[in-house]
């Protein structure tokens, strides 16, 4: 399978480990970054990872940040993406089987690597069951889609990055 993966600077090493893990199992991985530990912003990588899934370039996606919340929220705001934030194997199984989730997400500061690998194995290995009930809920979710124009627009966040560079955001 082709897996689109993305993370923020808090969990870069975990993402790198998972790329090796996925490639060792024969998957092709699209690494959307971030590539180092320099402070950056999770929506950039959540959106990039999700865009590849939405456009069909990748089959499935994986997003990771500290808690998983920020990056998976940004992924979910991409049309056609259903990103499952999970803390256990069974929720990943359910989300794939019933909601046809196409991204799995977790917190690299919440879960350990053994559990993460097990979640990924099950997420990739579980088939969606196309029942009437499941199709109905997915159609309802799709009806909430927003503005398609944002997909694969790499300049989408420029206005905020400019403000950041000008020092307008500070602790």
């Amino acid at each position: 399978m082709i897996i689109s993966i993305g993370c923020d600077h808090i969990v870069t090493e975990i993402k790198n480990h998972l790329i090796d893990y996925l490639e060792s199992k024969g998957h092709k991985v699209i690494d959307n970054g971030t590539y180092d530990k320099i402070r950056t912003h999770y929506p950039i990588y959540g959106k990039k990872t999700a865009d590849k899934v939405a456009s069909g370039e990748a089959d499935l996606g994986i997003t990771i940040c500290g808690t998983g919340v920020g990056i998976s929220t940004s992924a979910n705001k991409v049309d056609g993406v259903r990103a499952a934030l999970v803390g256990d194997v069974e929720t990943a199984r359910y989300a794939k089987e019933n909601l046809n989730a196409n991204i799995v997400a977790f917190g690299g500061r919440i879960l350990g690597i053994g559990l993460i690998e097990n979640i990924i194995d099950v997420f990739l290995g579980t088939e969606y069951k196309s029942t009437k009930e499941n199709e109905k809920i997915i159609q309802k979710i799709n009806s909430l889609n927003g503005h398609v124009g944002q997909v694969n627009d790499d300049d989408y966040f420029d206005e905020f990055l400019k403000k950041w560079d000008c020092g307008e955001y500070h602790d």
Partner: protein
Amino acid sequence: MKVAIGSDLKGYELKEHIKEYLNSLGYEIQDMTLEKELDFFDVTCKIAKAIQEKKVDRGIVIDEYGVGSFIVANKHKGIICANVFDEHSAKMTRRHNNSTMITIGSGIVGVRLAEKIAEIFLASEYDGGRHQIRVDMLNKLW
């Protein structure tokens, strides 16, 4: 602070419990699913809209796995929602993501842990500062 709570059928029992628990802590809880028939999609939309319209400040949705409601909530413009299964995430998603909604899976999270998650989500504040650029980015997305 006004807090909306809701559930689908499978989350109903835990929702009732968490509602009572939060009431006992002094929160004003608005139950959006007094009727049991809603599915998680409908109840989540109802609560997300109440937040969008500023009728409530926070929302909590309970379904069997949490994850369905989590996806639905985040498909709403301006909503940042976390599917929470641990106390640490309940705190951090307020502090870093300024999330206004959480979902809890009644089939995954036990009642004591769910109490703590809801309590800490409501008690934690947003850190602001550098985190605001990420929240601005999320809010530009749908």
